[in-house]
């Protein structure tokens, strides 16, 4: 198997797109191709990560459409990967396999989602389709309500307080305010969202104990990465970033069927596999992008991935260890909370952000001390299908 490197990245502005989903994906793909400087080389395969286009945008066969729009004929493969909110990292994993196996030399992976084409009620409904149809969905379960129940239990078990949830939001909004492509570039304060007299109005309940600023926004956005064999990576313009490890794991569909619903077993297993493949440990990581669709998830995932002991993630947060400039900056891009969460795209955008960090190109939100290793968790369902990725600067 060949080592595989990321040789180009691109991304649109996140938020509410003025353009069609396909046009956003073209923009991100074009940026990745220009970023890499592929010259006369042909792209051999295109993998598209998306969750809701047939329903929300009346567009199926996105990969074929993207190949056509970018005039990439004749690629060896053009496929859409749908794995819920983990579609992005799953698509990158498929791209990795194509290059590592020798089937392809140059693979474009593009994630895209245009969620604001439908109203917020429909967007929430569409995301809730990934819950268990008969044990959860029919009872009105939505992702915020699952996350609310998870948060309550987690707080009881591990001493997490509302202040800790707010700290995640404050940190990630502060980071997102520095990211020109973030959806919500609005710094928020503890007084404004939790302790001040207007906090309940500024930050109302969504699914108690989760409030408005504990939940990610409904975003449009597209991102793309270009993959090539590590042996060829130096022929491209930018510092290559190696996909050092990828791990994937699954868990029960219905959350209540897990022995302990606060254990995100699939995150732990996926992270262990990714670190084993990379021959690294959590201590080697200098920057991470975790799937903070809800603030509690950043804390829980940081523990399951092995960065902190169980029940210690919120204490590290309290000590400022996860800020830019801290021991392990988490979500310097703003994360899903502030950069945004176009669901099918998110795993690709996490890898784009880590690549920028490892290249030293993240601008105002650059993590100091030239990070060498990055780590991402892309969380599908409510933890029933998780993909973890370890990246390494250079080949």
């Amino acid at each position, binding site marked *: 198997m060949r080592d595989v490197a990321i040789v180009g990245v691109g991304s649109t*502005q996140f*938020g*509410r*797109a*003025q353009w069609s989903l396909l046009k956003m994906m073209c923009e991100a793909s074009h940026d990745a191709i220009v970023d890499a400087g592929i010259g006369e080389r042909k792209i051999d395969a295109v993998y598209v990560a998306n969750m809701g286009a047939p329903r929300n945008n009346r567009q199926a066969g996105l990969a074929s459409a993207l190949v056509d729009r970018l005039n990439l004929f004749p690629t060896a493969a053009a496929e859409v990967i749908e794995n819920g909110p983990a579609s992005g990292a799953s698509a990158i994993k498929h791209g990795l396999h194509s290059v590592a196996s020798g089937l392809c030399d140059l693979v474009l992976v593009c994630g895209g989602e245009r969620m604001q084409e439908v*109203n*917020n009620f429909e967007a929430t409904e569409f995301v809730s389709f990934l819950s268990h149809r008969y044990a959860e969905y029919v009872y009105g379960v939505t992702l915020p309500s699952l996350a609310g129940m998870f948060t309550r239990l987690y707080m009881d078990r591990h001493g997490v307080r509302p202040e800790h949830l707010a700290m995640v939001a404050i940190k990630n909004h502060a980071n997102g305010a520095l990211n020109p492509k973030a959806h*919500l570039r*609005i*710094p*928020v*304060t503890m*007084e*404004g*969202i939790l302790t*001040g*007299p*207007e906090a*309940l*109005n*500024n*930050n*109302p309940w969504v699914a108690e104990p989760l409030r408005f*600023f504990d939940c990610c926004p409904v975003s449009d956005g597209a991102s793309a990465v270009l993959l090539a064999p590590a042996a060829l990576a130096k022929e491209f313009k930018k510092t290559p970033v190696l996909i050092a490890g990828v791990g994937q794991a699954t868990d029960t569909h219905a959350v209540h069927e897990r022995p302990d619903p606060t254990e995100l077993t699939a995150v732990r297993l996926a992270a262990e596999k990714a670190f084993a493949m990379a021959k690294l440990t959590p201590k080697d990581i200098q920057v991470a992008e975790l799937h903070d669709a809800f603030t509690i998830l950043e804390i829980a995932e940081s523990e399951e991935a092995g960065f902190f002991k169980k029940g210690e993630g919120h204490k590290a947060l309290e000590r400022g260890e996860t800020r830019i400039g801290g021991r392990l900056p988490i979500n310097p891009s703003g994360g899903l909370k502030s950069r945004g969460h176009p669901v099918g795209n998110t795993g690709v955008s996490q890898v784009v952000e880590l690549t920028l960090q490892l290249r030293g190109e993240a601008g105002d939100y650059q993590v100091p001390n030239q990070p060498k290793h990055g780590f991402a968790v892309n969380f599908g369902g409510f933890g029933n299908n998780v993909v973890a990725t370890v990246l390494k600067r250079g080949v």
Partner: protein
Amino acid sequence: MSPPIYDWDAGEYLTSEEERMIDELEAMLRPPALPMAPYPPKSVLLASGEVMVVRQASVDEVDDMLRWIQPLSWLDRDFYNIVSARLFAELLGWKTHRVRDEYCLVGVIDGALAGIVNGRLFDAKHGISYHTLTLKRGLRIGSHLFASKMEHHIEYLGQDEVWIVAESPIGHRRWMIEYPLDKKFEIQHELGGAPSWVLTRDTYFRAKSRLVTGTRPVPAELLARSFPLREPDLRTMLVQVEDTLEARI
């Protein structure tokens, strides 16, 4: 043109017959006015940590507001076009005394206009909500200003009901669902379109602890900083709504 002549006995400037006729005609064109209690200013701490002063606007401030909101009438996002165009006409109608018993409240952050709400009295006990326009997004400024408008109608103007329609899905979520308001479909709201919904005193006081916030009195220095109104940062707002009206501003 000769200067006006002052009549020392009458204690006023003498006006010509023509001028008197114009004044009489103008008086007929102007609607009668009900007495209106003033809205006492308050301060609201936003999620960002910024403090917004909510206060009554004066007609002297209308020209500036018209100039700033006019470009938004071309913004085809979130119904900014129809809301700003209608608000423009309502504020102009207020300034020129062509709308009866209208008032306007503004949200001001460090002097900059952050939002506008307006409405009027239908009669002493019934109010009509006109529009809510947010000029800084993502901080629930529209929610705070709409709540202030309801507070004005119920608590300071002493009304029993406010009739409300929404022209955007955001408005429908914020007013009809979040309070929640009751249907009053037998009333045709004067903005046209959909029939009215209603906020009653009962609805208001049930929602008050959740939705109506603010601190009074506003410290003199903070209140002073809300005068005069400064131009809103429309460029930032337009980026937030993903449009670029820069050429039109």
